[in-house]
């Protein structure tokens, strides 16, 4: 299959990345050559193969539902590009 420009713009929308109109052509070319490469997998019949979801022979551990830290609001807010004393600040979302 091939990816057209409209499809790429749609995927970019899903990924929340704005795409520069001037770059759409080269992006389309690159992605199509990558997908052509990826689609070699279609040569293989995998009908009877179980998908590999974990390479470890162990299931994920569970832990006790206990609080192990807290009171670190300042540390968490420290790197925010926009904040007040208590919250992250984002552009207005409710009119």
């Amino acid at each position, binding site marked *: 299959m091939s*990816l057209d420009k409209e*499809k*790429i713009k749609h*995927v*970019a929308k*899903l*990924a*929340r*990345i*704005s*795409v*520069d109109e001037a770059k759409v052509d080269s*992006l389309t070319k*690159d*992605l199509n*050559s*990558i*997908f052509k*490469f*990826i*689609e*070699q*997998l*279609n040569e*293989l019949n*995998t009908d009877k*193969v*179980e*998908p*590999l*979801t*974990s*390479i*470890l022979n*162990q299931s*994920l*551990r569970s*832990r006790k539902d206990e609080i192990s830290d807290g009171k*670190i609001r300042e*540390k*968490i807010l*420290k*790197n*925010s*590009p*926009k904040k007040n004393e208590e919250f*992250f600040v*984002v*552009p*207005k*979302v409710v009119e």
Partner: protein
Amino acid sequence: MSNITNQSLSEILKSIKSKKISSLELTQEYIKNIENAKKLNAFVTTTFDKALENAKKFDNKPNNEQLLSGIPLAVKDLFCTENVKTTAGSNILNNFVPSYESTVTKNLWNNGAFLLGKLNCDEFAMGSSNETSFFGNVINPIGDHLVPGGSSGGSSSALAADLTPATIGTDTGGSIRQPASFTGTVGLKPTYGLCSRWGIVAFASSLDQAGPMTKTVNDCSIMLEAMSGFDDKDSTSINKKKESYSKNLKDNIKGLKIGIPKEYRVDNMPKEIDELWEKGKKILKDLGAQLIDISLPHTKYALPTYYIVAPAEASSNLARYDGVRYGYRSQKGKDLIEMYENTRSEGFGDEVKRRILIGTYVLSSGYYDAYYLKAQKVRQLIKKDFDDSFTKVDAILTPSTPSSAFKIGEKTNDPVSMYLNDIFTVPVNLAGLPALSLPAGLDKQGYPLGLQLIGKALDEQKILNIGYAFEKNCGYKNEIKKWWS
């Protein structure tokens, strides 16, 4: 003393412990080297003041019982370091100062080492040449026109140029082994789960693994011992007893069975790589190992599988960069969605955006089965190839890369040709296995070439032992002219 930085980590440790040199003097030597090597662009951040302070602290009260007593270390800028900027080679994290320390770096500091600086890498570890870094490409000390490999290119360059006695990188598809091969150094990707992923900027969580990059195999065993270990904070960390890789390092490999996979002889591979492989086989055979021909029939599908699995996981991991909680935020856009879109568009570089788009597409409704599920199935077949082979052999010998270091700019316009660099390293990540890249020879241009030893899961000791015996008998020596200083 002036040549101390030429030496291996284990030799330097001896000098520290016998007080032939103080930690402060050692640190000053490295700082001098780093300041003279700005042309290589290996460092994103240096922490000289803190390093000197830590060195003095060590000298005042030396603890020589530790694995890394008084050793300054630079690490890849993908490891979060408390109160030291951590960028992952990206504009989107250019102002990010973690309030916590990654488990792996904390393990190094707990073993007596301290931070010298943060090393450049491909943006979010996505690249094979260190050309995708927001902070510019790194130069290979082997030649001023050559890439140092990637993504741990700052690490390989700094190590080969004597700017750090050893270092650590991360390897998602070859990012430790390929740069090690390009610079004539030793690089180990451990078994998935051996080193904690906690506090490492995530790329593809089912593949990412931290590991050592060093000048010798012995150094590699010391670093692995220091950095590995169970961590409750990583849900895929393996809970097992800690091993003394350095104490148990042996060069007797008599009777070990070494598999030679026929699928690793690819079309258009330079003759020199084939010859190097032959040389490696002969060395191991002369040491009493038995060579066995094996087949890993799905090898050719490893890269296409990787380029579905890794971008899929990356698109999910990188969704966190939204310009709200940390990192770069665009000032453009009239609402929240536009703020997200502009932040991510301005904050990420082209290769990262490309991979996020691939990942988003293969996970999107209607395409998931055709791509992602298919890739998970082929990943099972690739793992099974290795499982089957390891019933017959102790380790597998292959070339590390299909070429030596290439020229800066040579592959940047063709993503697929760049991806093909990882053809021999990627299968190991998909199967979660350990693999060691060893410097083994030079091509006709005089550039280093590496051989790779692949082991069973958690069989690091065995491949280190084979590597150790190989190193003693290979006669490889990295002689780099310091043209940059």
